[in-house]
């Protein structure tokens, strides 16, 4: 990897990169429980549009969140199966549905930049900053804000 890696370990955060739409996102690895292929998703009638459904992951009931919908991106139509990133939030299990999983990256917090002011509102709401990688930008997903859709959903 050609990243500039600081020697200061405490400032380095490891990210799991994922693709949603065309955009690269990074999730702090400390928050990621596992990555899995969602199987037999049960839809939940009357739920918020971003709730894709519930599924059984090794005996736990996981609530799947459609990240494309959450970020206001169009539905996927290439027919390829989605992947899911398992997250624990306030004692409950969630699975964020994404297009594909990339790699694990160590990035220094020093190179993190704040959100550009003109960033799309739906993205800015869940973004914890941006990292400039070679050839592309990685938006940091703030997991807590992704799942904090209570009042937004109400308003919608």
């Amino acid at each position, binding site marked *: 990897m050609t990243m500039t890696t600081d020697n200061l370990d405490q400032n380095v955060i490891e990210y799991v990169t994922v693709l949603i739409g065309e955009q690269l996102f990074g999730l702090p690895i400390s928050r990621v429980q596992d990555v899995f292929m969602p199987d*037999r998703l*049960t*839809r*939940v*009638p*009357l*739920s*918020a549009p971003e*709730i894709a459904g*519930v*599924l*059984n992951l090794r*005996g*736990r*009931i996981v*609530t799947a969140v459609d990240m494309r919908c959450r970020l206001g991106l169009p539905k996927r139509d290439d027919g390829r199966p989605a992947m899911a990133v398992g997250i624990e939030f*306030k004692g*409950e*299990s*969630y699975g964020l549905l994404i297009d594909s999983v990339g790699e694990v990256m160590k990035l220094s917090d020093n190179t993190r930049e704040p959100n550009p002011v003109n960033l799309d509102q739906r993205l800015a709401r869940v973004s914890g900053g941006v990292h400039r990688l070679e050839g592309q930008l990685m938006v940091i997903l703030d997991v807590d804000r992704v*799942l904090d*859709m*209570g009042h937004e959903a109400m308003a919608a």
Partner: protein
Amino acid sequence: MDDLLREFLTETNESLDTVDVELVRFEQDPNNAKILDNIFRLVHTIKGTCGFLGLPRLEALAHAAETLMGKFRDGLPVTGEAVTIILSTIDRIKEILDELERKEEEPTGADRDLIEELERMVTENGISSKTAAPAAAPEAPVVVATPARAVRIGEVSEDELERAFRETVCEVEVPAPAPVQSEAAKAADAAINAKAEALSAKAKADVEAGPSAASKARANAKAAAERSSSDEDRVDLKVANQSIRVNVDTLEQLMTMVSELVLTRNQLLEIVRRHEDSEFKAPLQRLSSVTAELQEGVMKTRMQPIGNAWQKLPRVVRDLATELDKDIELEMHGADTELDRQVLDLIKDPLTHMVRNSADHGLETTAERRLAGKPEKGTIRLSAYHQGGHIIIEIADDGRGLNTDRIKAKAVSSGIVSEAEIEKMSEAKIHKFIFAPGFSTAAKVTSVSGRGVGMDVVRTNIDQIGGTIDLKSAVGEGSSFIIKIPLTLAIVSALIVEAAGDRFAIPQLAVVELVRARSNSEHRIERIKDTPVLRLRNKLLPLIHLKTLLQIDAGAEIDPENGFIVVTQVGNQTFGIVVDGVFHTEEIVVKPMATKLRHIAMFSGNTILGDGSVIMIIDPNGIAQGVGTTAVHQDAASEAHHHDEQKMSLLVFRAGSAQPKAVPLSLVTRLEEIDGKKIELSNGRHLVQYRGQLMPLVRVDDEVKIRSEGAQPLLVFSDAGRSMALVVDEIIDIVEERLEIQVVSDRPGVLGSAVIKGQATEVIDVGHFLPLAFEDWFRRKEAQIAKTRTVLLVDDSPFFRNMLTPVLKAAGYQVTAVGSGQEALAMMKAGETFDVILTDIEMPEMNGFEFAQALRADPRTSDMAVIALSSMVSPEAIERGREVGFHDYVAKFDRPGLIAALKEQTSDMNQAA
């Protein structure tokens, strides 16, 4: 929080609950040294720990209480006053503990008031005790604790104890023991109990009765108590070794893991079933049975004796008894009956509420009881026992019983049921109205009738955990409430159904029956415009399509006539859920939904099925609310009045002409469809046999043809046991509309025309047709009124004036109708008088409340009976109405209620005159 502090809080709270119970027992049995010792020890421990933890406020309080109790031990007589002050000290300690738990530090403040009171009690009573002590002493009880539990003699192998048993072969009473934390503790407690009491009995037997005997017996008893308390310390050690405190979360997690294990086992079994003679078969069998046992074992850890929920009750009853000045005894049976923790938490409050109710409303005052020839002490009996997978809890009192007449009157006037229907009902059925929603909130019931406060809330709570509540009552003998609740909520039996390709679970408890509807069968889905209904055993069952309700039909056509109907009952509401398919029943493990989904009222949770897929569990309560708004139901119609001030439910139909006609739905008793062949012609009138009576048929319009074959739709009106039916061509719809008569008609039977759903619609005057069926329809009522009364009707809407005037006239009143409050006041100023004024609430310029206030302000009219007439019948409105001086509050269109209210007001005048 500090571990030590947390431990202290848990333990102290438990101790205090015990002290509450013990103190009440102690008050009844002041010479029981064992109880006193128990209390003393608990308070002493609290005091000691507080000193250790540096909680001076608590320590001071506990110390003062301990000092007073120390005096009791020295022979100070126990007075109710003293117990009250100790109880309030304990309440204060609890308050401080609550605060301590929240803020993790002792709140500031002083308790001088209580402490002084306690100290005063110590010094004052110390003097009087000298005279009182000898009198109290000889009553040392000769009761031996329940041997059933003390049988575990092995645990306390003392010769003395055995001898004590041998010596006291007297009759064995079974006192209700105070609920204790665990089985082991209970056994130990009982053993000690037995010992202490046996000893004191012996002590009494040893000495001959005489002046000096009393003090000696007391001394012996005290010595015995001391000895047994040192024994107790030893037994306590044993108890500590036998039970450990486990965090509830740990248990919950264990339960979840076991549930998952069960599911995994089910999956394995499924796989092995597909492969004959697999070598896994035998070990899997073993795994299967071990899993089952494990599940049972873990379930057991969640179980707690119901006595835990009863712990506070003796105190509650004692306080109420003091407050109400009644003599009440609370009996508790089956306190060790175990049930799931979660269920226990949920029934705690309803139980307390019901016991309060029994003490407050159920039992008469001491004077009343004496008059009725009953023992002065009223009894409330609580009992619990198992019955086939359920727990039955009974709350019985020997009080006055429910007042059937009052419930009847209230049920009719609040529009829950018609007078005709209630006449046919059994007493038991009438009593059940006290559970009807809103029944108790009405102003009148709380002040007049017996119990009923919040019974609907109790019922809702019990419904929520899938339980049922029933009651029996006999006038003068008392009432008893019987609650039936499931043992556990974690595992329920559910019916798996399919709708729009998805599976759902419906809890079996709510399901009454399954009906397969097919187009050519007896059970066929019919519709009143868009509302699907099913005729089931002469009742019209509102239906709701699950896919429509859940909005998952995805535009697909709903088969209008076929489907499976799950007949569901929630409270007193019955409805059918239409699904595409029904699979089987399965025991499911209920798992809570994610917080993101909890707002969906239609679901109560989700679960993993044996095949590993997740499905949603339907909440019948949520569905019932969804149905409520569309149900073709009198309840629904009257409820609509609550929710909507302006709109009313109208039944739209066609009769005679193409133009639609309408009638307020609340006036219609039932909608029927009869076979044309059953219509008979007799004496020039059309009749049909209906519910064992001949019901005359009246045509809305001469153009209407009464069918001689095929289905004939009818609108049935019933009153006081008689029914008549209007013959119509077709029932079109039920709509919620604001009714405004725009063109007033002079044709008999038609009030006028209004726009309903964008179409000009004739509004029918029902009052015109009723006498056509029975000439004396209204006159029967007339006969009951001795003298013609005058009524002033104030309503801004010409429609209501037109509709009510004939109704009131027919009931024998002389009616004057005016369009505003000002007009009415002007008439009265001019010297006109009326017996009763009926006024609308929502009127422009001067509303009903203002009008009533104006009447009150004028001395000439201040005594006049005023009845409010409104579609806005909310408890707040009723309250406000009472404040401004309305004598009664009647819902618009509640004709029986109105007539009843008028009758009541005019008869009041008769009495006054």
